[in-house]
């Protein structure tokens, strides 16, 4: 008996073919496995819990959609929804506008440019807790630095925490402080992908810097701006740490819930009252809202985009 030379080849070829076809799946598998374990499973389990009455330390009891009825007929939920929206607008709009302006300035040649660029990221690297604590002190009624400054110009002390809009403004300032630099760096990266020739051509045509910004920078940045709007919207709908610490660690959001966001409302249900079923319901409704918001954002941005 004699083995023909190259007898292994068909087997090897087949193995090679199998590997070629399955390798991509193997390479993407880790992400999807992790996503299934830490993303999909919690998502589905949260939905399951939201259909139950589930108190910490006790058994689940099937409720059907009762938690959703409870939530949608609860004035505190609508209050939290509205506050999330107003704080979201108060923080996102100035934040992105400031970031755009800063990025435009940093895009010019200037002394110490790298220093300024790096220092932009510093607030983002600070922990939420530390930032919120410091700002809560700054916005103190009796001994806060902000009221002290206002006092110099003759304005009466403001009770930041207890006022409705004042508390929201104070929280928005924390958010703006933390995220403006982060967004500015993203804009800066986007700006650097715009061809320098366009600016030179515009300058030759006699366009001012403001005109260059409007007619060259803004159109070129459109996809980047859309990205930051989507990310900021998601961030704003999940706002939690800043108002929690501003409120001294209590999730009430002030005596009238004047700064109780959806995140705080959820935390209060789950951890102050121990109603995990209701907290899960809030979580799911927030999730659905975020999806709707992102879709609306994308749709709006697409409609505005040039053909």
């Amino acid at each position, binding site marked *: 008996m004699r083995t023909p030379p190259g007898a292994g080849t068909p087997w090897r070829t087949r193995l090679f073919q199998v590997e070629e*076809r*399955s390798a991509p*799946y193997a390479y993407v*598998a880790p992400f*999807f*496995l992790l996503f*299934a*374990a830490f993303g999909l499973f919690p998502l589905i389990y949260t939905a399951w819990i939201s259909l139950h009455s589930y108190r*910490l*330390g*006790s058994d689940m009891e099937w409720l059907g959609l009762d938690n959703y009825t409870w939530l949608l007929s*609860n004035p*505190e939920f609508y209050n939290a929804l509205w506050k999330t929206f107003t704080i979201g607008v108060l923080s996102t709009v100035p934040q992105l506008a400031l970031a755009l302006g800063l990025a435009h300035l940093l895009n010019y040649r200037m002394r110490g440019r790298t220093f300024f660029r790096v220092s932009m990221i510093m607030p983002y690297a600070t922990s939420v807790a530390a930032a919120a604590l410091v700002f*809560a*002190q700054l916005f*103190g*009624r*009796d*001994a806060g630095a902000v009221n002290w400054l206002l006092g110099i110009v003759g304005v009466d002390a403001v*009770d930041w*925490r*207890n006022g*409705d809009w004042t508390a929201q403004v104070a929280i928005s300032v924390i958010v703006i402080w933390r995220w403006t630099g982060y967004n500015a760096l993203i804009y800066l990266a986007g700006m650097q992908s715009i061809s320098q020739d366009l600016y030179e051509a515009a300058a030759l045509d006699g366009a001012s810097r403001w005109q260059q910004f409007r007619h060259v920078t803004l159109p070129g940045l459109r996809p980047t701006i859309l990205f930051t709007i989507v990310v900021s919207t998601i961030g704003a709908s999940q706002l939690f740490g800043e108002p929690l610490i501003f*409120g*001294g*660690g*209590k999730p*009430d959001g002030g*005596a*009238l819930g004047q700064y109780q966001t959806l995140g705080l409302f959820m935390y209060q249900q*789950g*951890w*102050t*009252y*121990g*109603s995990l079923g209701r907290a899960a319901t809030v979580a799911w409704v927030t999730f659905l809202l975020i999806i709707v918001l992102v879709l609306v954002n994308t749709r709006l941005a697409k409609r505005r985009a040039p053909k």
Partner: protein
Amino acid sequence: MTVRKKTTAALATAVAGTLLLAACGGGGSAPAEGGPVELTVSLFGTFGYEELGLFDRYEAENPGITITYESTQGEDKYWPALQTRLASGSGVADIQGIEVARIADVVANQQDLWTDLRDTPAADSIANYVEWKEPAATTADGAVLGLGTDIGPMGICYRSDLLAQAGLPTDPAALSARLTSWDDYLALGREYQAAAPAGSAWMDSAGGFYNAIISTEQEIYYDAAGALVHETNPAVRSAFDTAAAAGQAGLIARLEQFVDPGWDAGFASGSFATIACPSWMIGYIKGKAGDAGAGLWNVTTLPGGAGGNWGGAYLGIPASSEHVEEAAKLAAWLTAPERQAEVFASAGNFPSTTGGIEMVADATDPWFNDAPIGQIFSTSTQNAPVQILGPEDGVIKSAMVQALLSVEANGVAPADAWNSALADVNNQVG
């Protein structure tokens, strides 16, 4: 097709594997008999044990025992975390603190999760306490789930210097003579406010004032049969209205207790002249006002010499503890009369054992102008009614306090605030 099937199978195996691994993580092995034992103690706020070096002393007296201690500052953060651990069956300490507002919930709903201390070396300690302390931690079947650490008899703490500036009596006895009821306290507040130094209010917060009044009552949010009566109990409405009236009259500094950073600062800066003072507040005030505040503060009795109880805590041993025997010995040692007297001397937490109360009866506090705090708090304990506690006390109390803050800080009408507090409670509890 095959590829998809295989991938699905692989995915399923991987997920199952992960779950198995996770399931195995929870267990632990029991230590050998008589070997060294590591006890864990998890508390909230200031119990005074670590501060007094009691854990070190116990380790020195009991070779082979090491104690790991951790504390969470806020009870409102401590408790949910503990509940999660109890529910998952892992990560709980051998000794856990239980605040008095939670004990009814523990007794009613969590009997299986805690050790019955009658079956442990701590059984002998159960008889040491003031009459109501242990019954509150005892289930319908007679299981005792917590050893009392301290109780919260009350007085009024006040800044003598501010009262003097406003022309009011500063001597505790003279002040107490002017205070025969809470209405007197308000009237004196109006007098203070008329002549007070700028930026200083008569008291700190409407919520604290409300808690002080309601803590002198026997029936609060539940009746003896265990039914919710927060809506109909005249004592609750009356305490609410009195506190709201003070808020409307501008007698209050509008600083939310334990939450507003300005409240902590106010002890030193004089934002408020008086504060309803459970014994454990004594240590808190000293800490916040610091050495510079020594001699400025003083203590007198509640209006009319009323007794009451606001706060206090228990030590419980979770059923999942692997060192029940040793933990029970430590808990009994920590809550013994001698230790309670020491803790009172350093942190102000008032003894919950009759023996401990006898030991501190003559205690005075130099920081508080040598106020006879032992005698003030002992009398308050003797005059205190046996409170009826219920599982949702905490929810209702926080709704009331929040509504009162809206009266003092946001100008909400008291009647509207009352209705919104009721709506909150019924929405949550009902």
